[in-house]
């Protein structure tokens, strides 16, 4: 029986300021629990998490959640080897795509996969067992789906978007077990791979700016150029090609030619 480990974290609500469960992580837990018949599922969190949030994850159906005590100021370079030592025995490690607290850079799954020496598969939407292997479905742009057969231990970042309504069972929430454990030893050495929250970047936090400054080149224009720009009617949008002549067949052919020139249709 192979084991799945799901890494979860709490999320700080932007409006209420309260800690809640992260939607992406909850989708990962729900996806793992669908495989509970064939695989053992561990739900793991490192970092500060209140019992309320931990029980929110238990309400998805997990019987037990393991919380590892990590200082709040632990940076990613130290967190990654710690997580790696915790989940090293699990065949598949499931995470969300990006954390809903802190910077949410989305680099952690990649750094964790590098630390464990495993392949990393991003944007996973489905997971099915096939004998000893797993069939992993990856979401692409424009609704595309890629299927991968994974036969080795891997790290999967679960895409939250397509997951529907998540289960919330009050009984499981109350009956589940929250296990707090001390930080495992022997994880002092930080990994060399710097990540978004790594030691090499010093971040300072300021209140949210509603509007961002768009980067634009400063145009060195004379006053005369600016005046001409204000009355310029040539370069303003006048539309593209206009086809008025010909019969409907010719016009349809013109549209089809345009679609084919720009590779919008594939026949």
């Amino acid at each position, binding site marked *: 029986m192979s084991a799945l480990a799901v890494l979860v974290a709490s999320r700080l609500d932007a409006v209420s300021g309260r800690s809640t469960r992260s939607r992406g992580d909850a989708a990962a837990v729900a996806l793992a629990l669908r495989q509970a018949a064939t695989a053992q599922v561990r739900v793991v969190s490192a970092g500060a998490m209140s019992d309320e949030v931990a029980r929110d994850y238990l309400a998805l159906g997990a019987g037990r959640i393991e919380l590892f005590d990590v200082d709040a100021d632990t940076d990613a370079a130290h967190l990654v080897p710690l997580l790696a030592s915790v989940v090293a025995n699990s065949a598949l490690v499931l995470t969300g795509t990006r954390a809903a607290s802190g910077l949410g850079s989305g680099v952690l799954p990649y750094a964790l996969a590098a630390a464990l020496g495993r392949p990393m598969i991003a944007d996973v939407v489905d997971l099915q067992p096939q004998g000893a292997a797993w069939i992993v479905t990856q979401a692409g742009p424009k609704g595309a789906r890629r299927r991968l057969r994974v036969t080795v231990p891997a790290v999967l970042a679960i895409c939250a978007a397509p997951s529907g309504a998540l289960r919330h069972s009050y009984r499981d929430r109350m009956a589940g077990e929250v296990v707090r454990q001390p930080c495992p030893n022997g994880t002092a050495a930080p990994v060399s791979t710097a990540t978004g929250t790594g030691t090499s970047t010093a971040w*300072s*936090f300021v209140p949210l700016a509603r509007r961002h400054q768009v980067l634009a*080149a400063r145009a060195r224009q004379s006053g005369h150029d600016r005046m001409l720009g204000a009355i310029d009617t040539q370069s303003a*949008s006048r539309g593209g090609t206009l086809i008025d002549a010909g019969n409907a067949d010719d*016009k349809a052919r013109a549209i089809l030619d*345009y679609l084919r020139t720009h590779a919008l249709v594939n026949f």
Partner: protein
Amino acid sequence: MRPAGSSARRIDPRRPASIGPSGLRRIVLGGSEGERSAATLAPAPTASKPLRSAGPFARCVLVVAHADRGALDDHAREVVAAAAVLAEPDCEVVVAVLGACQDDAATWGIDRMLVHSAFDPEAYQPDVAVCWMLELQRLFNPAQWLLADRGADGDLGRRFSVAAGLSVACHVVELSRARLRVRAAGGFDALARPTAVMLLERGVARAALPFVGLGRQGTPPAWPQTPPAAGVDDLGLQAGDPELQSLEEADLILAAGNGVTDVALFNALASALGAATGASRVAVDDGRFPRAKQIGATGKTVSASGYLALGISGAMQHLQGIKDCRHVIAVNRDAAAPIARRAALTVVEDSGTLMRALLDQVRQQRGRA
């Protein structure tokens, strides 16, 4: 204003002027040389844009992007523009493109473009792409890497930064030479100095530039022949069904307006083209289409690569909904409809007649293919 009849100084609008070598009207006060004609407001012939920097270059900044149908998409162009705006005169803007790209490099501020035309976007090869980027790093040793933070580019940038051990900033929403800004959770922004790898969100920079780049074509490093990662086998890519996916992520949209009365024909054409269907507010209010299909200010904002508007006049509210569409084709009986100014191709024809003609041709050519 001085009262009428006073000795107000008046300026003769037809006083003599000569056209100088720079094309400007030159008036010598009190002079009598030149032509006596009223000033015309014709704009000067558009001068070509100046070069950002002619070199020599001591450093470079590298942008890596996946091409979308033989061109860089708007997000990638913004990233290239950000690189060009931030580059010092001795810094070269090098763009490495995965996939064929026929864009004019100079227009977008690119000094050197390395196009790997043989790239296969269907294949699953993230590790090979990372090896290719490590080879780029060895050849160019760029001061900074810039990528668009979406889809394949964002994935590649994260993989590369971890593999190369470089500091990375993701979801960058604001960038300058001195600092970058990232949205953090809990109502805060995080500021830092620019990192080695930066993944930029949409809208960080304006793609239009007042200068051009050198626009040279370079040879990218050879695609690494490393075997794909063991244990992960690609079982194939399946394109999405346009009718099942949401309109926002559709790639080709066939949209109906008030001019479309034959909905069955419209749906047949959409399924023959493999396009998702949308509608304008009038067509939805009329009950011909469900509310979920509405595109526009009160409906959905779509970002399709191709948008075929049938019988849509193009009200401002509808144009807001298609502002991110790349290629807009309009079919309308009125050549002066506002959509004609937005569309790259406008066909003046009754939408029913054109749909029948188009459906016949699509069926013929699909049958032949």
